[in-house]
């Protein structure tokens, strides 16, 4: 956790709310601590990266991942079951002719367990409003300039399906094993605002 300006008005507001809810018996202090610990330990873009590295090195896994991601990710010890309701995961594969990018225009949904806590830019009105309308310009601002003949597909997560981009495997990586490939994959690559 970062700064602890416990005296700010909003921090005081949160404390009052928390005290009221604990007193009403709706939540407990140990429970809140446990929730936070589990969240921070469990949610990470390394999870998404492991899925990608496996898909790059195992064609059978890749094919199962694209047809039933919820089942396939159990191969690497992952699950979409961490929340209250199991969400459906859909993995969308980049190809030389098509690039995918993810958004939730209505709020900020994305697969937190596989990508880690969402960055503020992903949650911002600026990203949510612009990426569906001018994705090419948005990607260029992120440093990803796509050739004109690459089509862009933007996926708006408006229901209970959560999306993960399967980036193209970078050139010159044939000699790398799965563990090394994991290190190449970034959160932005899994969202679609970077090539990998």
């Amino acid at each position, binding site marked *: *956790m970062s700064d602890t300006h416990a005296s700010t008005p909003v921090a005081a*507001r949160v404390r009052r709310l928390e005290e*009221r*809810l604990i007193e009403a018996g709706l939540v407990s202090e140990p429970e809140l601590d446990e929730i*936070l610990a589990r969240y921070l330990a469990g949610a990470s873009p390394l999870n998404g990266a492991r899925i990608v590295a496996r898909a790059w090195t195992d064609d059978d896994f890749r094919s199962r991942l694209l047809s039933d991601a919820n089942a396939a990710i159990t191969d690497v010890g992952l699950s979409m079951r961490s929340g209250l309701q199991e969400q459906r995961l859909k993995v969308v594969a980049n190809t030389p002719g098509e690039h995918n990018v993810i958004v939730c225009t209505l709020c900020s949904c994305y697969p937190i367990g596989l990508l880690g806590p969402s960055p503020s830019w992903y949650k911002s009105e*600026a*990203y949510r409003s612009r990426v569906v309308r001018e994705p090419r310009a948005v990607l260029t601002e992120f440093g990803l300039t796509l050739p004109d003949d690459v089509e862009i597909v933007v996926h708006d997560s408006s229901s209970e399906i959560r999306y993960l981009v399967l980036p193209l495997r970078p050139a010159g990586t044939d000699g790398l094993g799965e563990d090394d490939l994991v290190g190449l994959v970034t959160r932005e690559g899994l969202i679609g605002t970077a090539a990998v």
Partner: protein
Amino acid sequence: MGRVNDVGGQTGFGEIAPEDDELAFHADWEARVYALNAALLRHRVYNLDQFRDAIERMPPDRYLAASYYERWLTAIETLTGDGHE
């Protein structure tokens, strides 16, 4: 009625500004809000759709001025009967 959160395709929101090495929470209170919401959902005090609805019903000027977790805080207050505005 159109809701303020429904921003797909709207213009005028300015630059997208990624932060380097951003932490999950900018302050302790944000983490507390996160945990409170998760606990209340788990105990079915309200459901996720009611939670989103409560955020969306914020007056537009308050919604846009509020940070991400301030919106969550407002929604939790609304749904647990706190009269704060």
